[in-house]
C-alpha cells in the first residue's frame, strides 16, 4: 500500500477483518462470468431492425445464398419465415480459373456486416437434391435424387463452434427425405451455435460440446479457427500463402491431405462467418481455395441466381463450395464420394469426377442478423 495517511488506511480497512479475496472467490467469479455469458446469449432481446446482408438482396428482394432470406410466397420454413425453394439447375462445366478470377474480383467488393452487440447470425441451411448428371436442363427441386454415398443434411460441421468434425460418423442422408431445413442461431463471438432446429425440431449440435462449454473455451483460449470472432477473422493474413499456413496450423494434424482439409474448413467457416468477412480476407480465402490441387468448376442456377460450384476432388472425396456469381458471397456446399453409385444420369460406367457426381444433396445457405434467438428476421 503506497498511501499510508491514517484516514486512507482507515477507509481501506473498512469493514475491519474483511479477508482478501482468495483463489476460491476468484474461481467462483470466473464461473459467474461464464454462466452469465451463457444466460445472456439465451435472453430474449427487444426486436430490432433486421440488417440485410447484401445490398443486392435488398434491391432485388430475392436472393439465395447471397446473405439474405428471401421470400417466395410458397416456400416457408415451419416458423413461417420465407426461405429459398432451392431449385438447382445444372448449367454445365466452366473453366475453374476463370470462375475463381471472377469470384475473387467480386470478393473484393463485399463489405462485412457489422453485428450490433447482443444480436445473432441466423443461418438457414436448406439441403436439396442435386441435379442429375447428363441432364443440364434438369433440376433438383427438393425431390430426392438417386441415393449415393454422400453428405449428411446440415453439412459436415454442425458444431457449437465451427471446427469441422471428422468425416466418419455422419448420418446417412438417404434416410431423410429432401429437402431438409436446418436453422441455426449463432453467436458472432466465436460463431457458437446457441440454438438449432432441423425441420422445426430443436436439435443439439456441437459434437458433444455444449454452447456453454464453447463459450468457456472461447474465454479461456481466445478466438481461433474453431471459435472465430469478427476481429480475429479481420486480422487473418491477407497473403494467401500465409493464410493457408495459418489455417493449416489451426486445423492441426489430421488424416488426409492438407488440401482436402482446407476445402472442408473453408466451407465450414463460410457458412457462419461469411457475413462478417472483410474484403481483403475474403479475397485471400478465395485465393487459398484457388491454390488447391484438384479443382474443377461448374455453373448452376439456383432459384434463378447464377452460381459457381468450385469442386475439390481428391481420390473419391469431393467437396463442393457454391458461390453467388452476383454478390461474390458463399452460397452453399456439399461433400460426397465418387463411386459406382455416385455417377448418375448417364447410364454409362463413366467415372467422371465433375459436378454433381458423387452427390445426392447439397446445402444452400442464407443469413440474417436477428435480435434474439428463435427469430429469423
Amino acid at each position, binding site marked *: 500500500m503506497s498511501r499510508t495517511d491514517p484516514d*486512507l488506511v*482507515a477507509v481501506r480497512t*473498512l*469493514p475491519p477483518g474483511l479477508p482478501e479475496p482468495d483463489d476460491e*472467490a*476468484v474461481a467462483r*467469479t470466473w464461473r459467474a*462470468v461464464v454462466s452469465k*455469458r451463457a444466460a*445472456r446469449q439465451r435472453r430474449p432481446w427487444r426486436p430490432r431492425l433486421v440488417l440485410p446482408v447484401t445490398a443486392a438482396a435488398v434491391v432485388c428482394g430475392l436472393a439465395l445464398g447471397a446473405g439474405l432470406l428471401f421470400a417466395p410466397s410458397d416456400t416457408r420454413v415451419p416458423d413461417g419465415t420465407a426461405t429459398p425453394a432451392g431449385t438447382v439447375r445444372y448449367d454445365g462445366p466452366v473453366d475453374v480459373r476463370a470462375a475463381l478470377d471472377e469470384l475473387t474480383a467480386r470478393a473484393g467488393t463485399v463489405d462485412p456486416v457489422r453485428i450490433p452487440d447482443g444480436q445473432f447470425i441466423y443461418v438457414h441451411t436448406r439441403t436439396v437434391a442435386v441435379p442429375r448428371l447428363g441432364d443440364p436442363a434438369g433440376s433438383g427441386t427438393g425431390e430426392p435424387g438417386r441415393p449415393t454415398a454422400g453428405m449428411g443434411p446440415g453439412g459436415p460441421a454442425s458444431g457449437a463452434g465451427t471446427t469441422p468434425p471428422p468425416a466418419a460418423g455422419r448420418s446417412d442422408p438417404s434416410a431423410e427425405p429432401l429437402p431438409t431445413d436446418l436453422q441455426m442461431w449463432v453467436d458472432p463471438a466465436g460463431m457458437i451455435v446457441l440454438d438449432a432446429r432441423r425441420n422445426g425440431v430443436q436439435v443439439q449440435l456441437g459434437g458433444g460440446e455444449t454452447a456453454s462449454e464453447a463459450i468457456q473455451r472461447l474465454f479461456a483460449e481466445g478466438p481461433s479457427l474453431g471459435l472465430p470472432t469478427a476481429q480475429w477473422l479481420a486480422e487473418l493474413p491477407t497473403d494467401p500463402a500465409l493464410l493457408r499456413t495459418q489455417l493449416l496450423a489451426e486445423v492441426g494434424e489430421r488424416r488426409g491431405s492438407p488440401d482436402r482439409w482446407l476445402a472442408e474448413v473453408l466451407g465450414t467457416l463460410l457458412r457462419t462467418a461469411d457475413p462478417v468477412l472483410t474484403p481483403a480476407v475474403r479475397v485471400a480465402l478465395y485465393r487459398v481455395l484457388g491454390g488447391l490441387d484438384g479443382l474443377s468448376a461448374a455453373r448452376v442456377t439456383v432459384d434463378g441466381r447464377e452460381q459457381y460450384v468450385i469442386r475439390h476432388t481428391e481420390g473419391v472425396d469431393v467437396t463442393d463450395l457454391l458461390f453467388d456469381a452476383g454478390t461474390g458471397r458463399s452460397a452453399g456446399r456439399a461433400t460426397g464420394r465418387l463411386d459406382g453409385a455416385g455417377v448418375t444420369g448417364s447410364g454409362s460406367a463413366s467415372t467422371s469426377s465433375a459436378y454433381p457426381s458423387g452427390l445426392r444433396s447439397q446445402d444452400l445457405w442464407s443469413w440474417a442478423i436477428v435480435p434474439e434467438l428463435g427469430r429469423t428476421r
Partner: protein
Amino acid sequence: MKTHIADRESVDAGDLAGLFDRYARELLRYCARRVGDDVAEDVVAETFLLAYERRERYDPTRGALLPWLYGIATNLLRRHLRTELRLLRTAVPADLVSEGPALRSAERVDAQRSVARLAAVLAKLPRRQRDVLMLYAVAELEYAEIAAALDIPLGSVQSALHRARTKVRAALPAEGENR
C-alpha cells in the same frame, strides 16, 4: 508499459480470460470493501462481461485498462447502493459497542466506536465523493485515472477527494485522543 501492451493485445484479441487473470483479484478486493463478498463477485463478473462486450469502446489513449475496469465496476456498484449503505451501518455490530467497559476493554470499545463513526461518515458522503474516495484509498488510483474511470474532470476529482477526506479526518480520533 508491458502491462499496457498486454492489455491492448488482450482487448484486441477478446482475451477475457487473460484480463480476468490480471485484474479480477484487485476488483474483487475493491468491490468487497464496498458491498461485501457475495455481491462483489456478481459485480466483478458483470464488470468483465461488460468490458468484453464493449471492448471496442476502450480507448487506450485515455488511460490504462484497469481504471476503465474500475469505472465499469463503480457504475455497477451504484445499483447496489442500499447494500453498500447497509454494510456501512453494520460495520460494527451494535452489541459490541453498547456492552460497555465491563465486558470489553476501553481501547477496544473506542476502536469500535471509531469504526462506527467512520462508517457513518462514509454512508453520508455524496455518491461521487464516496466513489472518488474509494477509488483513491482502496483501488489506489491516481487523480487522472479516477477522472478517466468516472468520466469526470480532474478538478472534480480533486475537489471531491478533498471534501471527502476532510469529513473522514474529522471522524477519526486525533492522535492520542479517545473520543
